[in-house]
């Protein structure tokens, strides 16, 4: 072995086995870490913080909507509230949520590597994200923006007061964090797989994160360019979106949605990856149709780039282009549906263990299907022209992003909590939280489908008296949902101090991450794993503990 190669055998035994959490306690060891597991925790704490801020904005919105009159917030204040809610939730919570916490933590573990391909770049990604987040906080403290998270021109370029430039700059900067993460994942998955780990043996979580990384790298730069043009238009009046100089406001929408539609697949693909892991683990069964699910991830990533015009059906886009986008938007539902069918088939005749992660997964399936079906409705031109810009759209995307992604995030949090922290949480409280979230979510957002269908416009806080009942139900649901989201904060943190010590494999699951200790040692494995089987080789010969405290 060449002297330059890293020799695992030569590392001291105790360093090899020491948990990554104990490998240094100083601030420096955390804020200058290159350990992907520690970076994942840095992200976890950060996104929780931004989730809370976005949640406060949501609370303001739901409180204001309790009455038809604009009594809590002024018109401008309401605009700023939903803009803040959207900007923070999309870029500072949802997009990094699963990939930068669970992706960062698990990708090297699942492929049997010691770290990501570019550990320092990984840390840089976090710092860029934090810098952008701080700028956004400055925007919030400075009064925010009233433009919506979509920054449409000419409002943003000509008329909006407020801290548009800083907000746009913050989002622009956050994009680099995303691009670097995607680059890191792609190279890691290509070049750092353990011996024997062929593409056909990769966990579906990895396939999903590979697909999402494609979107990270190919879509985000277009957002960057669009925001630069937006800034140039606002500051210098270059005219690219201004008809009086020959520009086109719809060009902004084309460029914006070229990124922002794939962005919603950024938000959902990792969640779909989580689901494959939760379902196979709970059912103790091989996934049904491995290649269908794997290729479906890639298909979602690719087709997801071809549908953006469905956000512009009534904006002035040509009818012919709209028809093409409508067709492609229907097509993109197919791979998602394939996944749902395959998970269902996986559960069928499985040896199912009811657990909190499974409850979250079940909730996900119900809510994702509802969101997906309503997405199909929106993809149809004839329906969309009536419900565009109504609460129907708001409900649809919250079913996917909150009912889907956030539920999957919590499922992942519970499932991998023992691995990340080495502790077991209280199972009863977790199940109660899962059900509270499911009930609270439906109470919040189902009435919104009805509101939208009845004609309640989005981004309005003044509405006809007749809508109040549904609005009150929705706000009540939001309160319940908040309780559901707060519960894990308490019992998970509690488990850090008083939870039972987790075994290496509390769920009896397959996957390389379960073959190492909980929590893993600093370099993930004490010996280089070699893979000889597919990823879901149930039933396990030695399932270790199926006892989850």
């Amino acid at each position: 072995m060449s002297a330059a190669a890293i020799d695992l055998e030569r590392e001291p035994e105790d360093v090899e086995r020491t948990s990554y959490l104990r490998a240094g306690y100083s601030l420096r060891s955390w804020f200058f870490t290159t350990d992907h597991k520690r970076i994942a925790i840095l992200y976890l704490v950060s996104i929780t913080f931004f989730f809370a801020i976005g949640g406060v904005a949501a609370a303001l919105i739901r409180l204001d909507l309790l009455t038809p009159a604009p009594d809590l917030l002024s018109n401008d204040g309401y605009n700023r509230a939903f803009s803040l809610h959207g900007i923070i939730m999309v870029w500072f919570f949802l997009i990094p949520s699963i990939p930068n916490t669970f992706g960062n933590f698990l990708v090297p573990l699942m492929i049997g590597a010691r770290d990501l391909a570019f550990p320092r770049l990984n840390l840089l990604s976090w710092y860029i994200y934090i810098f952008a987040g701080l700028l956004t906080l400055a925007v919030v403290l400075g009064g925010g923006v009233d433009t919506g998270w979509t920054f449409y021109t000419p409002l943003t370029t000509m008329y909006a007061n407020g801290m548009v430039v800083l907000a746009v700059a913050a989002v622009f900067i956050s994009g680099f964090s995303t691009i670097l993460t995607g680059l890191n994942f792609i190279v890691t998955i290509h070049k750092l797989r353990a011996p024997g780990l062929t593409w056909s043996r990769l966990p579906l979580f990895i396939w999903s994160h590979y697909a999402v990384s494609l979107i990270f790298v190919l879509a985000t730069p277009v957002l960057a360019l669009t925001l630069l043009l937006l800034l140039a238009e606002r500051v210098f009046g270059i005219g690219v979106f201004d008809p009086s100089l020959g520009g086109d406001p719809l060009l902004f929408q084309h460029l914006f949605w070229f990124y922002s539609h794939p962005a919603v697949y950024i938000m959902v693909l990792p969640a779909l990856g989580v689901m494959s892991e939760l379902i196979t683990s709970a059912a103790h069964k091989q996934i049904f149709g491995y290649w269908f699910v794997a290729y479906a991830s890639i298909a979602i990533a690719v087709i997801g780039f071809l549908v953006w015009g469905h956000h512009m059906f009534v904006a002035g886009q040509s009818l012919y282009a709209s028809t093409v986008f409508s067709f492609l938007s229907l097509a993109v539902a197919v791979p998602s549906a394939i996944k749902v069918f395959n998970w269902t088939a996986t559960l069928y005749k499985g040896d199912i263990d009811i657990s909190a992660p499974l409850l979250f997964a079940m909730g996900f399936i119900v809510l994702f299907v509802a969101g997906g079906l309503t997405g199909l409705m929106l993809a149809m031109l004839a329906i969309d022209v009536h419900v565009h810009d109504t609460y129907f759209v708001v409900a649809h995307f919250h079913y996917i992003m909150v009912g889907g992604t956030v539920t999957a995030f919590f499922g992942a949090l519970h499932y991998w909590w023992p691995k990340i922290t080495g502790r077991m949480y209280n199972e009863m409280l977790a199940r109660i939280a899962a059900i509270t979230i499911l009930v609270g979510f439906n109470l919040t957002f189902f009435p919104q489908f009805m509101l939208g269908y009845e004609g309640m416009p989005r981004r309005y806080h003044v509405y006809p008296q007749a809508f109040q009942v549904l609005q009150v139900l929705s706000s009540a649901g939001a309160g319940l949902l908040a309780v559901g989201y707060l519960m894990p904060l308490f019992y998970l943190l509690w488990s850090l101090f008083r939870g039972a010590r987790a075994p290496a494999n509390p769920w009896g699951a397959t996957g390389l991450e379960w073959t190492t200790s909980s929590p893993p040692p600093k370099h993930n494995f004490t010996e280089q794993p070699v893979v000889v089987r597919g990823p879901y080789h149930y039933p396990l010969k030695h399932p270790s503990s199926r006892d989850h405290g």
Partner: protein
Amino acid sequence: MSPALPRLLLVWLALLLLLAATLGAAFLPLGPAKPWIGYSIAAAKAGLVLWFFMDMRREGGLMRLATGAALLWIAFLLCLVAADYLTRSRPAGAGEPGATNAGEPL
């Protein structure tokens, strides 16, 4: 002199010739074909740079796939944006009532 140098120089010469060709073609009365010719020659230049200078000639499938993917995605962006702008209809006449969006393209 390394064996690779003559090849690189030949490619460079070809690139300069293509540049001359595209410049010359711009002065010919080619009508609507002009931009097609210009961008085709640009694509040829790009192909030479990619194949010989960026060594796609000797790279494995993964690198070529990555390069191809980038090109494909740019095509996605340009083609679907074009799909809108090329099929927008102009109003049939000044303020003509009843003119719909399903009118004549461009």
